Protein backbone atom coordinates (compact mmCIF):
# COMPACT_ATOMS: atom_id res chain seq x y z
CA UNK A 1 0.00 0.00 0.00
CA UNK A 2 2.76 2.40 1.02
CA UNK A 3 4.71 1.61 -2.14
CA UNK A 4 1.59 2.22 -4.24
CA UNK A 5 1.02 5.53 -2.48
CA UNK A 6 4.60 6.54 -3.18
CA UNK A 7 4.19 5.61 -6.86
CA UNK A 8 1.02 7.69 -7.10
CA UNK A 9 2.74 10.63 -5.44
CA UNK A 10 5.68 10.26 -7.84
CA UNK A 11 3.33 10.16 -10.84
CA UNK A 12 1.55 13.27 -9.57
CA UNK A 13 4.85 15.10 -9.20
CA UNK A 14 5.94 14.00 -12.68
CA UNK A 15 2.62 15.24 -14.04
CA UNK A 16 3.07 18.61 -12.41
CA UNK A 17 6.63 18.94 -13.68
CA UNK A 18 5.54 17.93 -17.15
CA UNK A 19 2.76 20.50 -17.14
CA UNK A 20 5.13 23.23 -16.03
CA UNK A 21 7.79 22.20 -18.50
CA UNK A 22 5.65 21.56 -21.54
CA UNK A 23 3.02 24.23 -21.23
CA UNK A 24 5.80 26.76 -21.60
CA UNK A 25 4.29 28.94 -18.92
CA UNK A 26 5.39 29.20 -15.36
CA UNK A 27 3.45 30.90 -12.66
CA UNK A 28 4.66 33.56 -10.28
CA UNK A 29 7.19 32.34 -7.77
CA UNK A 30 7.97 29.18 -9.72
CA UNK A 31 11.41 28.45 -11.06
CA UNK A 32 11.98 30.14 -14.41
CA UNK A 33 12.32 27.69 -17.29
CA UNK A 34 13.86 28.56 -20.67
CA UNK A 35 10.89 26.85 -22.41
CA UNK A 36 8.68 29.68 -21.20
CA UNK A 37 10.37 31.93 -23.79
CA UNK A 38 9.19 29.77 -26.68
CA UNK A 39 5.82 28.75 -28.16
CA UNK A 40 3.95 26.17 -26.03
CA UNK A 41 5.20 22.67 -26.77
CA UNK A 42 8.02 23.91 -28.99
CA UNK A 43 10.48 21.04 -28.87
CA UNK A 44 13.46 22.45 -30.76
CA UNK A 45 14.43 25.20 -28.35
CA UNK A 46 17.56 23.35 -27.23
CA UNK A 47 18.83 22.92 -30.80
CA UNK A 48 18.02 26.57 -31.39
CA UNK A 49 19.98 27.62 -28.30
CA UNK A 50 22.92 25.43 -29.37
CA UNK A 51 22.85 26.91 -32.86
CA UNK A 52 22.87 30.44 -31.48
CA UNK A 53 25.72 29.66 -29.07
CA UNK A 54 27.70 28.09 -31.93
CA UNK A 55 27.27 31.14 -34.19
CA UNK A 56 28.10 33.56 -31.39
CA UNK A 57 31.11 31.42 -30.44
CA UNK A 58 32.27 31.35 -34.06
CA UNK A 59 31.97 35.14 -34.21
CA UNK A 60 33.95 35.48 -30.99
CA UNK A 61 36.67 33.07 -32.15
CA UNK A 62 37.06 35.03 -35.38
CA UNK A 63 37.22 38.27 -33.39
CA UNK A 64 40.41 36.96 -31.80
CA UNK A 65 42.13 38.28 -34.94
CA UNK A 66 42.17 41.50 -32.95
CA UNK A 67 45.18 40.23 -31.01
CA UNK A 68 47.10 39.53 -34.21
CA UNK A 69 46.34 43.01 -35.55
CA UNK A 70 47.27 44.59 -32.23
CA UNK A 71 50.53 42.63 -32.08
CA UNK A 72 51.50 43.71 -35.60
CA UNK A 73 50.54 47.32 -34.92
CA UNK A 74 52.52 47.50 -31.65
CA UNK A 75 55.50 45.81 -33.29
CA UNK A 76 55.47 48.41 -36.07
CA UNK A 77 55.77 51.21 -33.49
CA UNK A 78 59.27 50.10 -32.56
CA UNK A 79 62.62 50.12 -34.29
CA UNK A 80 65.39 47.71 -33.42
CA UNK A 81 68.79 49.24 -32.85
CA UNK A 82 70.96 46.20 -32.49
CA UNK A 83 69.18 44.13 -29.90
CA UNK A 84 67.47 47.11 -28.32
CA UNK A 85 63.86 47.99 -29.06
CA UNK A 86 63.28 51.75 -29.47
CA UNK A 87 59.96 53.56 -29.89
CA UNK A 88 59.78 55.31 -33.21
CA UNK A 89 59.61 59.09 -33.16
CA UNK A 90 56.53 59.06 -35.39
CA UNK A 91 54.90 56.32 -33.32
CA UNK A 92 51.87 58.47 -32.45
CA UNK A 93 51.15 59.05 -36.12
CA UNK A 94 51.53 55.37 -36.90
CA UNK A 95 49.15 54.43 -34.15
CA UNK A 96 45.93 52.75 -35.26
CA UNK A 97 42.95 53.71 -33.12
CA UNK A 98 41.00 51.07 -31.22
CA UNK A 99 38.04 51.69 -33.50
CA UNK A 100 40.24 51.21 -36.54
CA UNK A 101 41.68 48.05 -35.08
CA UNK A 102 38.30 46.50 -34.42
CA UNK A 103 36.63 47.78 -37.57
CA UNK A 104 34.44 45.16 -39.20
CA UNK A 105 35.25 42.94 -36.31
CA UNK A 106 31.83 42.28 -34.92
CA UNK A 107 30.34 41.89 -38.36
CA UNK A 108 31.28 38.29 -37.81
CA UNK A 109 28.47 38.08 -35.30
CA UNK A 110 25.88 39.15 -37.88
CA UNK A 111 24.98 35.50 -38.67
CA UNK A 112 24.14 35.08 -34.98
CA UNK A 113 21.67 37.96 -35.01
CA UNK A 114 20.26 36.93 -38.40
CA UNK A 115 19.74 33.41 -37.10
CA UNK A 116 17.72 34.70 -34.15
CA UNK A 117 15.58 36.92 -36.39
CA UNK A 118 14.85 33.92 -38.62
CA UNK A 119 14.00 31.90 -35.52
CA UNK A 120 11.36 34.45 -34.51
CA UNK A 121 9.62 33.84 -37.85
CA UNK A 122 10.12 30.10 -37.46
CA UNK A 123 8.31 30.25 -34.11
CA UNK A 124 5.35 31.86 -35.84
CA UNK A 125 5.25 29.13 -38.50
CA UNK A 126 5.39 26.55 -35.73
CA UNK A 127 1.73 27.41 -35.05
CA UNK A 128 0.85 26.07 -38.51
CA UNK A 129 2.82 22.85 -38.12
CA UNK A 130 0.75 19.64 -37.80
CA UNK A 131 -2.26 21.59 -36.47
CA UNK A 132 -3.56 25.14 -36.70
CA UNK A 133 -2.77 26.13 -33.12
CA UNK A 134 -2.53 29.65 -34.57
CA UNK A 135 -6.35 29.73 -34.28
CA UNK A 136 -6.09 29.25 -30.53
CA UNK A 137 -3.25 31.74 -30.14
CA UNK A 138 -5.16 34.39 -32.08
CA UNK A 139 -8.25 33.85 -29.93
CA UNK A 140 -6.49 34.51 -26.64
CA UNK A 141 -7.94 37.46 -24.76
CA UNK A 142 -4.57 38.64 -23.42
CA UNK A 143 -2.77 41.06 -25.66
CA UNK A 144 0.55 40.16 -27.28
CA UNK A 145 0.78 36.51 -26.19
CA UNK A 146 1.33 35.29 -29.75
CA UNK A 147 3.97 37.91 -30.55
CA UNK A 148 5.71 37.41 -27.22
CA UNK A 149 5.90 33.65 -27.72
CA UNK A 150 7.58 34.19 -31.09
CA UNK A 151 10.10 36.87 -30.18
CA UNK A 152 10.81 36.44 -26.47
CA UNK A 153 13.43 33.69 -26.97
CA UNK A 154 15.24 35.38 -29.86
CA UNK A 155 15.18 38.75 -28.05
CA UNK A 156 16.64 37.18 -24.95
CA UNK A 157 19.32 35.55 -27.10
CA UNK A 158 20.09 38.88 -28.76
CA UNK A 159 20.31 40.65 -25.41
CA UNK A 160 22.62 37.96 -24.03
CA UNK A 161 24.71 38.05 -27.22
CA UNK A 162 24.93 41.84 -27.14
CA UNK A 163 25.98 41.73 -23.47
CA UNK A 164 28.72 39.18 -24.20
CA UNK A 165 29.97 41.21 -27.17
CA UNK A 166 29.88 44.41 -25.12
CA UNK A 167 31.95 42.81 -22.36
CA UNK A 168 34.42 41.46 -24.93
CA UNK A 169 34.72 44.90 -26.48
CA UNK A 170 35.56 46.33 -23.06
CA UNK A 171 38.08 43.57 -22.46
CA UNK A 172 39.70 44.17 -25.85
CA UNK A 173 39.91 47.90 -25.10
CA UNK A 174 41.63 47.16 -21.80
CA UNK A 175 44.13 44.92 -23.63
CA UNK A 176 44.62 47.66 -26.25
CA UNK A 177 45.44 50.21 -23.55
CA UNK A 178 47.80 47.82 -21.81
CA UNK A 179 49.59 46.97 -25.04
CA UNK A 180 50.22 50.59 -26.12
CA UNK A 181 53.51 52.25 -25.23
CA UNK A 182 53.04 54.88 -22.52
CA UNK A 183 53.85 57.73 -24.88
CA UNK A 184 51.12 56.65 -27.29
CA UNK A 185 48.23 56.36 -24.88
CA UNK A 186 45.15 58.26 -26.07
Amino acid at each position, binding site marked *: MKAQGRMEEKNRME*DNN*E*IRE*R*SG*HVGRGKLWKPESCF*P*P*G*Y*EHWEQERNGAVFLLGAGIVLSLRFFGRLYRMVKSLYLYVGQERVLREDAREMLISFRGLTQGHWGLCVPFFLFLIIMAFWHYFYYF*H*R*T*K*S*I*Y*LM*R*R*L*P*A*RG*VLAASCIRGPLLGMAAGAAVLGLLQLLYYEVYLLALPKGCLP
Partner: protein
Amino acid sequence: MLEIRSLKKYYRSPLGSVEALSGVELEMGQGEIIGLFGENGAGKTTLLKSILGLQSYEGEILLDGERICRKNISRLSFATCEHSFFPNLTPEAHREFYKLHFGTFRDKRYEALMHFFELPKRKALKNYSAGQQNQFEVIMALCQGADYILMDEPFVGNDVFNREDFYKVLLGILEPEETILLSTHLVEEVEKFVGRVVLLQKGRIVGDKTMLELEEQNRTLIDYVKEVYGYRSDRVERALEELTGGQEK
Protein backbone atom coordinates in the same frame (compact mmCIF):
# COMPACT_ATOMS: atom_id res chain seq x y z
CA MET B 1 -27.11 37.56 -29.18
CA LEU B 2 -24.63 37.12 -32.01
CA GLU B 3 -25.56 39.26 -34.99
CA ILE B 4 -24.07 39.07 -38.44
CA ARG B 5 -24.90 41.98 -40.70
CA SER B 6 -24.15 42.20 -44.44
CA LEU B 7 -21.11 39.97 -44.11
CA LYS B 8 -19.02 39.83 -47.25
CA LYS B 9 -15.74 38.10 -47.83
CA TYR B 10 -13.62 38.09 -50.96
CA TYR B 11 -10.60 35.93 -51.63
CA ARG B 12 -8.03 37.23 -54.02
CA SER B 13 -6.85 34.82 -56.68
CA PRO B 14 -4.66 35.25 -59.76
CA LEU B 15 -7.87 35.27 -61.83
CA GLY B 16 -9.45 38.07 -59.81
CA SER B 17 -11.40 38.20 -56.59
CA VAL B 18 -13.69 35.35 -55.60
CA GLU B 19 -16.73 36.07 -53.45
CA ALA B 20 -16.83 33.56 -50.58
CA LEU B 21 -19.62 35.23 -48.58
CA SER B 22 -22.06 37.68 -50.05
CA GLY B 23 -24.20 39.68 -47.70
CA VAL B 24 -24.79 37.08 -44.99
CA GLU B 25 -27.37 38.11 -42.41
CA LEU B 26 -27.75 35.89 -39.35
CA GLU B 27 -28.82 36.16 -35.74
CA MET B 28 -28.05 33.60 -33.08
CA GLY B 29 -29.72 33.80 -29.72
CA GLN B 30 -28.23 32.32 -26.58
CA GLY B 31 -29.07 28.69 -25.95
CA GLU B 32 -29.63 27.76 -29.59
CA ILE B 33 -28.09 24.70 -31.24
CA ILE B 34 -27.73 25.55 -34.89
CA GLY B 35 -26.65 23.26 -37.69
CA LEU B 36 -24.82 25.02 -40.52
CA PHE B 37 -25.04 23.06 -43.74
CA GLY B 38 -23.75 23.58 -47.24
CA GLU B 39 -21.76 21.81 -49.91
CA ASN B 40 -17.98 22.14 -50.12
CA GLY B 41 -17.01 25.73 -50.83
CA ALA B 42 -20.37 27.12 -49.71
CA GLY B 43 -18.64 29.38 -47.18
CA LYS B 44 -19.23 27.55 -43.89
CA THR B 45 -15.63 27.67 -42.69
CA THR B 46 -15.22 31.22 -43.97
CA LEU B 47 -18.27 32.27 -41.98
CA LEU B 48 -16.98 30.68 -38.77
CA LYS B 49 -13.49 32.15 -39.21
CA SER B 50 -14.97 35.58 -39.86
CA ILE B 51 -17.00 35.40 -36.65
CA LEU B 52 -13.83 34.53 -34.73
CA GLY B 53 -11.90 37.37 -36.35
CA LEU B 54 -9.41 34.95 -37.87
CA GLN B 55 -9.76 36.69 -41.22
CA SER B 56 -10.74 40.08 -42.52
CA TYR B 57 -14.26 40.74 -43.84
CA GLU B 58 -16.69 43.45 -44.83
CA GLY B 59 -19.83 43.99 -42.78
CA GLU B 60 -20.52 43.76 -39.10
CA ILE B 61 -20.40 40.99 -36.53
CA LEU B 62 -21.74 41.98 -33.13
CA LEU B 63 -21.81 40.11 -29.86
CA ASP B 64 -24.48 41.60 -27.63
CA GLY B 65 -24.21 44.81 -29.62
CA GLU B 66 -20.41 45.05 -29.46
CA ARG B 67 -17.82 44.27 -32.07
CA ILE B 68 -15.81 41.16 -31.30
CA CYS B 69 -12.47 42.15 -29.83
CA ARG B 70 -10.04 41.01 -27.13
CA LYS B 71 -12.51 42.12 -24.48
CA ASN B 72 -15.20 39.64 -25.48
CA ILE B 73 -13.37 37.07 -27.63
CA SER B 74 -13.27 34.59 -24.74
CA ARG B 75 -17.06 34.31 -25.08
CA LEU B 76 -16.42 32.41 -28.32
CA SER B 77 -14.71 29.06 -28.62
CA PHE B 78 -13.79 27.04 -31.68
CA ALA B 79 -13.37 23.38 -32.53
CA THR B 80 -12.10 22.68 -36.01
CA CYS B 81 -11.29 19.57 -38.02
CA GLU B 82 -7.93 21.22 -38.72
CA HIS B 83 -7.35 21.08 -34.92
CA SER B 84 -6.19 24.05 -32.92
CA PHE B 85 -4.33 22.32 -30.09
CA PHE B 86 -0.57 22.07 -29.61
CA PRO B 87 0.40 18.58 -30.83
CA ASN B 88 3.42 18.23 -28.56
CA LEU B 89 1.54 19.03 -25.38
CA THR B 90 -0.45 16.67 -23.20
CA PRO B 91 -4.11 17.31 -22.31
CA GLU B 92 -3.02 18.31 -18.82
CA ALA B 93 -0.68 20.95 -20.21
CA HIS B 94 -3.55 22.23 -22.35
CA ARG B 95 -5.75 22.47 -19.30
CA GLU B 96 -3.11 24.62 -17.58
CA PHE B 97 -2.77 26.77 -20.69
CA TYR B 98 -6.52 27.29 -20.99
CA LYS B 99 -6.87 28.03 -17.28
CA LEU B 100 -4.13 30.62 -17.60
CA HIS B 101 -5.83 32.40 -20.49
CA PHE B 102 -9.53 31.74 -20.00
CA GLY B 103 -10.72 32.49 -16.51
CA THR B 104 -14.02 30.75 -17.19
CA PHE B 105 -12.48 27.35 -17.93
CA ARG B 106 -14.84 24.55 -16.86
CA ASP B 107 -12.58 22.20 -14.93
CA LYS B 108 -15.30 19.83 -13.78
CA ARG B 109 -16.65 19.42 -17.31
CA TYR B 110 -13.13 18.79 -18.58
CA GLU B 111 -12.59 16.02 -16.02
CA ALA B 112 -15.95 14.44 -16.80
CA LEU B 113 -15.50 14.49 -20.57
CA MET B 114 -11.91 13.23 -20.47
CA HIS B 115 -13.08 10.42 -18.25
CA PHE B 116 -16.12 9.64 -20.40
CA PHE B 117 -14.11 9.40 -23.61
CA GLU B 118 -11.29 7.60 -21.82
CA LEU B 119 -8.63 9.91 -23.20
CA PRO B 120 -5.16 9.50 -21.70
CA LYS B 121 -4.13 12.68 -19.92
CA ARG B 122 -0.39 12.15 -19.95
CA LYS B 123 0.05 11.37 -23.61
CA ALA B 124 1.13 14.04 -26.10
CA LEU B 125 -1.74 14.80 -28.48
CA LYS B 126 0.36 13.98 -31.54
CA ASN B 127 0.26 10.37 -30.33
CA TYR B 128 -3.54 10.31 -30.14
CA SER B 129 -5.57 8.65 -32.90
CA ALA B 130 -7.40 10.98 -35.32
CA GLY B 131 -10.70 10.23 -33.56
CA GLN B 132 -9.25 10.98 -30.14
CA GLN B 133 -7.77 14.22 -31.43
CA ASN B 134 -11.22 15.27 -32.66
CA GLN B 135 -12.72 14.42 -29.30
CA PHE B 136 -10.09 16.44 -27.48
CA GLU B 137 -10.58 19.39 -29.82
CA VAL B 138 -14.29 19.43 -29.06
CA ILE B 139 -13.73 18.90 -25.33
CA MET B 140 -11.52 21.99 -25.12
CA ALA B 141 -14.06 24.06 -27.06
CA LEU B 142 -16.77 22.94 -24.64
CA CYS B 143 -14.64 23.52 -21.55
CA GLN B 144 -13.28 26.96 -22.40
CA GLY B 145 -16.31 28.47 -20.73
CA ALA B 146 -17.56 30.26 -23.84
CA ASP B 147 -21.17 31.24 -24.50
CA TYR B 148 -20.89 30.62 -28.25
CA ILE B 149 -19.21 27.40 -29.31
CA LEU B 150 -18.38 27.22 -33.00
CA MET B 151 -17.61 23.83 -34.50
CA ASP B 152 -16.32 23.21 -37.99
CA GLU B 153 -16.76 19.60 -39.08
CA PRO B 154 -15.49 18.44 -35.70
CA PHE B 155 -16.22 14.75 -36.12
CA VAL B 156 -14.46 14.00 -39.40
CA GLY B 157 -12.74 10.64 -38.85
CA ASN B 158 -14.86 9.57 -35.87
CA ASP B 159 -16.99 6.46 -36.10
CA VAL B 160 -20.77 6.72 -35.96
CA PHE B 161 -21.05 5.41 -32.35
CA ASN B 162 -18.55 7.94 -31.21
CA ARG B 163 -20.41 10.78 -32.85
CA GLU B 164 -23.71 9.52 -31.46
CA ASP B 165 -22.17 9.50 -27.95
CA PHE B 166 -20.95 13.01 -28.40
CA TYR B 167 -24.33 14.38 -29.41
CA LYS B 168 -25.94 12.76 -26.39
CA VAL B 169 -23.28 14.02 -24.01
CA LEU B 170 -23.52 17.48 -25.53
CA LEU B 171 -27.26 17.66 -25.01
CA GLY B 172 -26.78 16.50 -21.45
CA ILE B 173 -24.07 18.93 -20.40
CA LEU B 174 -24.93 22.14 -22.23
CA GLU B 175 -26.21 24.93 -20.06
CA PRO B 176 -29.13 27.10 -21.18
CA GLU B 177 -26.95 30.07 -22.12
CA GLU B 178 -24.56 28.03 -24.26
CA THR B 179 -25.04 28.33 -28.01
CA ILE B 180 -23.64 25.93 -30.57
CA LEU B 181 -23.07 26.62 -34.24
CA LEU B 182 -22.17 23.30 -35.81
CA SER B 183 -20.97 23.15 -39.37
CA THR B 184 -21.27 19.62 -40.73
CA HIS B 185 -22.16 17.47 -43.71
CA LEU B 186 -23.85 14.86 -41.55
CA VAL B 187 -27.35 16.25 -42.04
CA GLU B 188 -29.36 13.19 -41.03
CA GLU B 189 -27.17 12.48 -38.05
CA VAL B 190 -27.61 15.84 -36.34
CA GLU B 191 -31.34 16.08 -37.02
CA LYS B 192 -32.24 15.14 -33.45
CA PHE B 193 -29.50 17.26 -31.99
CA VAL B 194 -29.98 20.68 -33.58
CA GLY B 195 -32.85 23.04 -32.96
CA ARG B 196 -32.36 25.17 -36.05
CA VAL B 197 -30.76 24.75 -39.44
CA VAL B 198 -29.05 27.34 -41.60
CA LEU B 199 -28.26 26.44 -45.19
CA LEU B 200 -25.48 28.12 -47.12
CA GLN B 201 -25.00 28.03 -50.86
CA LYS B 202 -22.33 29.90 -52.77
CA GLY B 203 -21.80 32.31 -49.90
CA ARG B 204 -25.48 33.11 -49.37
CA ILE B 205 -27.94 31.91 -46.77
CA VAL B 206 -30.57 30.04 -48.74
CA GLY B 207 -32.48 28.49 -45.85
CA ASP B 208 -33.04 29.15 -42.16
CA LYS B 209 -35.64 27.17 -40.25
CA THR B 210 -36.17 25.80 -36.77
CA MET B 211 -36.77 22.10 -36.33
CA LEU B 212 -40.12 23.01 -34.81
CA GLU B 213 -41.17 24.73 -38.04
CA LEU B 214 -40.11 21.66 -40.03
CA GLU B 215 -42.02 19.39 -37.68
CA GLU B 216 -45.13 21.53 -38.05
CA GLN B 217 -44.79 21.28 -41.82
CA ASN B 218 -44.30 17.52 -41.49
CA ARG B 219 -40.96 17.64 -43.24
CA THR B 220 -37.71 15.97 -42.32
CA LEU B 221 -34.46 17.89 -42.30
CA ILE B 222 -33.06 15.96 -45.24
CA ASP B 223 -36.21 16.69 -47.29
CA TYR B 224 -35.86 20.38 -46.52
CA VAL B 225 -32.17 20.37 -47.43
CA LYS B 226 -32.85 18.55 -50.71
CA GLU B 227 -35.66 20.93 -51.55
CA VAL B 228 -33.63 24.05 -50.88
CA TYR B 229 -30.66 22.81 -52.87
CA GLY B 230 -32.93 21.65 -55.69
CA TYR B 231 -31.72 18.07 -55.44
CA ARG B 232 -33.16 15.93 -58.26
CA SER B 233 -33.82 12.44 -56.94
CA ASP B 234 -34.05 10.99 -60.47
CA ARG B 235 -30.61 12.35 -61.33
CA VAL B 236 -28.76 9.12 -60.65
CA GLU B 237 -31.36 6.95 -62.41
CA ARG B 238 -31.22 9.13 -65.51
CA ALA B 239 -27.45 9.10 -65.53
CA LEU B 240 -27.35 5.33 -65.21
CA GLU B 241 -29.97 4.97 -67.90
CA GLU B 242 -27.97 7.17 -70.22
CA LEU B 243 -24.82 5.24 -69.49
CA THR B 244 -26.12 1.69 -69.65
CA GLY B 245 -29.21 2.15 -71.83
CA GLY B 246 -27.22 3.83 -74.56
CA GLN B 247 -24.90 0.85 -74.77
CA GLU B 248 -27.79 -1.67 -75.00
CA LYS B 249 -29.35 0.19 -77.88
